[in-house]
């Protein structure tokens, strides 16, 4: 429970020495209660008081770190249930799955495919961050360890899905330095598993046949002193898994129930049961609804392109539009005689349009005017992209630097053509197709027709 200013005040030494930057201990306490300053700003708090306070002011959901080096990821640490309340902090991470129930060739092919998806979108690297290595019942433990070894060789952080203590121990022997997750504790084995995870210094994944069982097991593990956990909320059905994913997150954040204050794992492999499109739909649903790690059978481009786009949108700061600086961007070795194209300063639009222009290989100048960081149609509807704004920008900042007098405008604002031409004597305005992806063909056709 959060403490009030008065409760905190009672714990201060009441010296009013101002060293914390506040005029009085009371003022300081009020600020701490609001979360405006940290208790550590007062050098005179007793150990006891600090312990009590850190417990009370701890975030509702723990931040759990997995992996090492470049492959270290923070999970959890969220403070809200909806992105409009405050920015979500720890992105969903995706794991591709292999299993000891697969033959060697399949495992090798799947592991090779892990590196297939790797691209950049608006400055963010998109790739399969994790590999889930499942130990199926009645399969050979030494085979499992071999697969773990191979999976570790991909350089990805591992999640070991293994409920057998001996096998888990052997597997950790070969991969614990990479700080994998050992997803293997349940009501029947948690004591032993907790010991194994603690010895190896790795995060322990906990599962349960029901929410109640999961809750009890987590409570028991915390009693043993293990708070380095993630909760596998995968239940027998999609419906029950959805409930578990929501219930765990909501209990921690809305109801302050710290027992459920951990990141989650949702394993889609059993839920989608080989239905690829279903798995894609569920991956999106559980990215939205609180999966910290989402396990898929394979991450290919069809799965990744929408999913990483969704994640990027979900985890952006709702207060900050992503903008690029207005100006002239010469592409593909363009000079002052190269044709001009224009678009808005919304980072996503810039990224999509410049990407296609680069792909075309045609030298051109991309002119970005200040459109308030809005998309083409939004800016147009808001009056921030108009014939006046474009003409003004070109007259003031382009005409003395660029000799070409051909301007290509986005197809979605084709209506601006006449007015821009009227306001910019000497310029020829050409309407481009609606979507950036059509630019490559459009420019190549222009080139072939000698229009450039």
């Amino acid at each position, binding site marked *: 429970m959060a403490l009030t200013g008065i409760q905190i005040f009672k714990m201060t030494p009441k010296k009013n020495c101002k060293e914390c930057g506040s005029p009085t201990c009371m003022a300081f306490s009020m600020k701490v209660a609001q979360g405006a300053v940290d208790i550590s700003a007062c050098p005179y708090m007793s150990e006891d008081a600090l312990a009590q306070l850190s417990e009370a002011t701890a975030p509702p959901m723990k931040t759990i770190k997995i992996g090492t080096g470049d492959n270290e990821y923070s999970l959890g640490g969220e403070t809200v249930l*909806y*992105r*409009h309340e405050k920015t979500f902090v720890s992105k969903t991470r995706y794991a591709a799955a292999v299993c000891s129930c697969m033959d060697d060739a399949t495992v090798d092919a799947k592991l090779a495919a892990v590196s*297939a998806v790797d691209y950049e979108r608006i400055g963010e690297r998109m790739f399969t961050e994790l590999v889930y290595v499942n130990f199926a019942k009645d399969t050979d433990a030494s085979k499992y360890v071999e697969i773990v070894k191979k999976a570790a060789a991909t350089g990805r952080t591992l999640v070991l899905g293994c409920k057998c203590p001996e096998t888990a121990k052997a597997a950790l022997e070969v991969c614990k330095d990479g700080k994998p997750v050992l997803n293997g504790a349940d009501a029947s084995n948690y004591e032993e598993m907790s010991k194994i995870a603690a010895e190896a210094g790795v995060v322990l994944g906990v599962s349960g046949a029901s*929410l*109640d069982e*999961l*809750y*009890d097991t987590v*409570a028991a593990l915390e009693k043993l002193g293990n708070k380095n956990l993630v909760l596998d909320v995968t239940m027998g*059905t*999609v*419906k029950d898994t*959805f*409930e578990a994913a*929501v*219930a765990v997150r*909501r*209990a921690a954040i*809305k*109801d302050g*129930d710290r027992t*459920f204050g951990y990141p989650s794992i949702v394993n889609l492999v059993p839920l989608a049961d080989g*239905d*690829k*499109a*279903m798995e*894609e*739909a*569920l991956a*999106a*649903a559980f*990215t*939205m*609804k609180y999966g910290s790690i989402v396990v898929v059978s394979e991450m*290919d*481009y*069809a*799965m990744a*392109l*929408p*999913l*990483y*786009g*969704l994640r*990027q*949108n*979900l985890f*952006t700061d*709702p207060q900050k539009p992503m903008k690029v600086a207005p100006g002239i961007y010469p592409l593909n070795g363009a000079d002052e005689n190269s044709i001009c194209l224009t678009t808005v300063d919304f980072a*996503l639009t810039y990224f999509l349009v410049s990407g*296609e222009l680069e*792909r075309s290989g045609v030298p051109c100048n991309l002119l970005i005017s200040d459109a308030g960081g809005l*998309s083409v149609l*939004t800016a147009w509807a808001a009056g921030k992209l108009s014939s006046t704004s474009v003409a003004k920008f070109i007259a003031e900042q382009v005409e003395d630097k660029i000799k070409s007098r051909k301007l290509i405008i986005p197809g979605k604002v*084709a209506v601006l053509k006449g007015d821009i031409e009227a306001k910019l004597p000497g310029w020829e305005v050409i309407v481009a197709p*609606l*979507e*950036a*992806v059509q630019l490559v063909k459009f420019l190549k056709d222009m080139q072939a027709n000698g229009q450039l």
Partner: protein
Amino acid sequence: MPFNRKPQKFNASIKEVEIGCGDKAVKIGGANVFPFYSFDGTVGNAPKVGVEISDMGLEHEPEGVKAYYAGATTMAEIAKKAAEMPGADFVVLRLEGGDPNGANKSVEELVAVAKEVADAVDAPLVVEGCKNVEKDGELLPKVAEALQGKNVLLMSAKEENYKAIGAAAGLAYNQKVGAESAVDINLAKQLNVVMTQLGVSADSVVMNVGTATVGYGYDYVISTMDRVRAAALSQDDKMLQMPIITPVASETWAVKESTASEEDAPGWGPVEERGVSMEVQTAAADLVSGSDAVILKHPQSVATISKMIKELM
């Protein structure tokens, strides 16, 4: 100590709206909890899946869509097949050809298409305009008149043309009205306020609060739907309790991920698989954010999303 469940109960619910007639009629809305939170209370009617067809025919459709409609040539035949698509709950006719900057078909011609489609199917029908506000303001009232008695939903009544569309669909011809706003809770509410002031019953309105493809400004779609649903339930805001319908296909099949050929995007794999994935992922995200109906077009997407809804209900 067992897990102490604290269900989120609300003394408010989403309105229920019926589209279509007879045994094929569908109801959307009715929930008094967040989307699919059946563990909290009543989820109301299962979200519904609409299948989009266009007066422009099939020429520009992806291969899998063309293949599904193979043999169908008239709009009536296409509509029949759409209604029979496994997982489909209703049919959506988009009158794209009306766009003055496109094919610019006449109102009469488009009304005839709407009639042909409405007569061919007994599934509930949703009619979307061409997005041009003036043309839609003319066209949709005429469609509303021509389809009297069918209880259709006429989409795309916006701030600029709601009077014409609302008065015809909602008042004169007793149809349902789709109120479209641009990804902003206040705009959505404002439109419902003026629509009801016009005299349209709040129970005859379905909202399209704005839509985008995942990755393309979709952050605003999530937050708009989250906030609309929260205001409807926790603040009992009557002007935000209309069910939400989201056109998905018309957005997702236009973006690069769904259209770039394999030569143009080496390594990305079959274009159709990417298109389906774009469509199902956007639809799934819309549904968990609060859409009561989604509009799709690929048979595989329709089957998948209707299966996902069943599994979540």
